[in-house]
């Protein structure tokens, strides 16, 4: 079958040298089209023996398949070349600015608060909130602050111009004044009056102090207290929680130390310091030359607090701690002045 072989050679050369997709289409029609050369050859096989025809037919079909593949290959190649040619003219200036979309942002204190909340929620803590206007009972009395404690002073606490509320606690009527809570610790007894142990909660929120603001003091700031009450909640657990939280926030290489402290509502009381991130412990103005910054006060809940909440103080134990969200945010982002947080200045806010 010289003619078939001859045809195949011719056809492949013609397909591979087609200069355009139109030219290729012509070659396709010429060779494998309905009345193309290949068909014509097949038709010319009428007069041969059936066996021979069968064999020739198979050969011709194989050849058709081969040519179609070749055509497809060439087609792809030609298309690619065409793209190259055509898209060149579509060239854009990629340095031109994109279409602007409004970009909003979450406040840095929200970002830090949520980060800390996430750490605790993974450890099984629930988030509990309380009112910003608080009763003296929850903010001071129930937390074992004696009635004449300096913190209750007009100088330190913002009091509301309202009549005291009369509340009943353990059969006693108490006249409790209204104030802007000075600590979210005020949520502790509120919560314990309604829930029984065991539990582990965190209590985020705004707190208020009557003091003139400066770079490190504010009349309003964000705290998050933690409270864990359960038969095995221990000082060793508290230490682990404190260290773990600091590592999660500031990285595993953060250096901390735990030392004794005093708070009316915890006994024993402790304070966790971290090595100053600004000077890496060498001493600078941020850490007042000590190389350390107080970050996490806490301790074992004072039995007087359990007593105020109506628990059996001898049989209950737990620990509490307090995280200053503003301070953590200042250290995390290198913010030098606490007043920036409530400055409402978008040049500050939009950096986060």
């Amino acid at each position: 079958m010289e003619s078939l072989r001859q045809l195949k050679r011719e056809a492949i050369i013609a397909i591979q040298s087609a200069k355009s997709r139109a030219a290729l289409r012509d070659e396709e029609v010429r060779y494998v089209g309905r009345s193309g050369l290949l068909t014509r050859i097949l038709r010319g096989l009428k007069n041969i023996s059936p066996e021979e025809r069968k064999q020739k037919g198979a050969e011709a079909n194989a050849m058709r398949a081969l040519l179609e593949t070749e055509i497809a290959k060439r087609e792809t190649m030609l298309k690619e070349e065409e793209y190259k040619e055509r898209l060149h003219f579509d060239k854009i200036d990629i340095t031109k600015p994109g279409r602007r979309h409004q970009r909003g942002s979450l406040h840095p204190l929200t970002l830090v608060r949520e980060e800390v909340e996430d750490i605790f929620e993974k450890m099984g803590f629930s988030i509990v909130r309380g009112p910003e206007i608080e009763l003296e009972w929850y903010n001071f009395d129930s937390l074992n602050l004696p009635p004449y404690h300096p913190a209750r002073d007009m100088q330190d606490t913002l009091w509301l111009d309202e009549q005291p509320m009369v509340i009943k606690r353990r059969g006693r009527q108490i006249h409790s004044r209204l104030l802007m809570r000075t600590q979210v610790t005020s949520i502790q007894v509120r919560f314990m009056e309604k829930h029984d142990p065991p539990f582990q909660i965190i209590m985020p929120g705004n707190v208020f102090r009557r003091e003139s603001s400066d770079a490190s003091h504010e009349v309003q700031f964000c705290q998050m207290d933690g409270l864990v009450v359960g038969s095995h909640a221990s000082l060793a657990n508290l230490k682990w929680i404190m260290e773990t939280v600091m590592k999660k926030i500031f990285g595993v290489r953060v250096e901390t130390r735990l030392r004794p402290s005093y708070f009316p509502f915890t006994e024993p009381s402790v304070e966790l310091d971290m090595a100053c991130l600004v000077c890496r412990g060498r001493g600078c103005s941020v850490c007042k030359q000590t190389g350390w910054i107080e970050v996490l006060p806490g301790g074992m809940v004072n039995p007087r607090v359990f007593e105020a909440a109506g628990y059996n103080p001898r049989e209950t134990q737990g620990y509490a701690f307090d995280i200053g969200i503003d301070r953590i945010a200042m250290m995390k982002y290198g913010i030098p002045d606490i007043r920036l947080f409530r400055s409402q200045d978008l040049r500050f806010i939009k950096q986060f």
Partner: protein
Amino acid sequence: MKFSYTWLKDYIPSLPAPEKMAELLLTHSFEVEGIEKKGGDSVLSIDVLPNRIADASGHRGVAGEIGAIVKKSLKLPKRLLKETNESTAKAVQINVTDKKGCPRYVARVLQGVTVSSSPAWLSGRLGICGVNSINVIVDVANYVMLDMVQPLHAFDADKIKGALCVRRASKNEAFVALDGAAYTLGPEDLVIADEEGPLAIAGIKGGKRAGVEIETKNIILEAANFDPESIERTAKRIGLLTDAAVRFRIGIDPNLTVRAINEAAALIQQLAGGTVLRGVADTGKNIPDKTILLRLAKTRSVLGFDISEREILDICKRLGFVAVKQGENLKVKVPSVRVDLVVEEDLIEELARMHGLGHLNSVPPTIVFTDANDNAKEKFRRRVGERIAALGYSEIYSYVFTGEQERDFSPRKGSLLKLRNPLQSDTAYLRTDLAHSLLSALAKNQQFEEARVFEIGAVFCRTSAKIQDTTELEEERIALGFFAKQKKESPFFELKGALFSLLESFGIDDFYFGDVSLEHKLFHPFRSAEIKTDRAILGMIGEIHPRAREAFGIKSPAAIAELSFVKLYEAASSELQYKEVSKYPSITRDIALLVPLDTRVADVEDVIENTGGTLLADTDLIDIYEGTELPDGKKNFAFRLVFQAPDRTLTDGEVNAIVDRIIKTLEAENLEWEVRK
């Protein structure tokens, strides 16, 4: 408080170097805030914790603390006191009329002393501690206080008329202090007085009249114990927190009185000569040492590790406690000077400190699952913030305090909450809405072409005359604020669009913007609306009234939307339900109609939707046109209607019939509405 290094070294000869000592104190007891070389000594600034003032605001206390840490006992001075046969009790009469204010008053009489200036070692040590040297008598009194905590006072015995009396001051009673300063006292102040009047403000400050001077020969030495609350109150009121007051207001051991007065008398005798009368005049007696039961199981459970009995006993011994085993517990007798030790937990703290908090192993807690709160609400709060931020708004935090100006704009002026002691007059009230906070934020950011802000926070107001709890006084809100210097239409629509996206994103689909039922001073009366659902008013949205804008100094049109957090949360909490997506094609038809200029979109839209029936799947306003080529007083609305059936392909005929019906109804509804065909 300032301490002298060499003084401490007298008591512990092997005292570690100042820096090392500071480190040991920090990890076991108190923070040493500074070490300063002065002469041959070092000044240590120690932050004695408030509960330890009673024992550690003196050198003996701090030395005892260090001794307990380094396991050394104190080497205390032995002072000899030579007494005459004459009895003190006969020479001085003490009359305490307020036993609660003064539980114990101890006095000694010294005769024939020579008042001169102090020797260098004494004035030097006082200087290290920041106390001025006056004369040897006053200096010894101060020295003993700095050593043993107990404040003492010396009177010139010859200037005292009659008995010493501890009493409440009468109303407007005058008093002149040693330094000449005058004070007016009252019945809440405790004084030491003689027949002529006050000689001292009890526990705070000595007076001029009976002060010890160079000529003084005979003195009465006082060591007393006062009610801490009374001292605190008086010191605060007259603004005089002396070294004595700092100690008395905490409450100190009454047994210190006799110990300290004997120490002082001996030292005076040594330095100023004279004779000391026999015994002390004393209005009280010693209290016994306290015994506290320490349960070992409880101790180990609270500390979180198995502290050995041996270590417990060792620590008790180092701290001067006497521990006796009783079954599984210890009975621990603590010195009366440790007034901070009352209950078991106080002892556990001592064990934790002395074991070393640094040596305490950190132990991961056993997690108890607690479902103590509605976490869905917390999650929702987060999502709201995130989604509003995604719409281009930046979150701000504001102070909750406002002033008179904001008060005037508040719709809840009458129920505003006020502070009794605000720092400034412009922070005297609590905000009743977030709108004010956002307006102040917008005003501060006018250097931008436009600004978008939001806040999530509490607002406050009294809801009823009688409240059950303070939780009733506050409400959580979400608010958005916006201004743009160049904008063709009211900023109202920017916020309306944002709210639309926000509410829809929470699956709230039954909300609408309705006319305001109550005029709000802050908002433009014709460019504001209430955000409602069928069940609740979620909040309010509006362009800001020019008068409010002027008050806040905002130059461009601005708008605020404010919603109740709880109501939004409730609206968003209804269960989402899957609706089947129709497999059949939809048919779209546009309707354009000319309407009078004051016709509102919703008026027309309502008619279309009410007439369209269930096959009308969607109605969208695609254009509003006002132009000169339209008839006078008219504008053009163009709506796109989408028809679709859930179960079949609609025919043109069906849809045409519905559209015809809509057109007829529209034209019948208002004769001025003209559908353009």
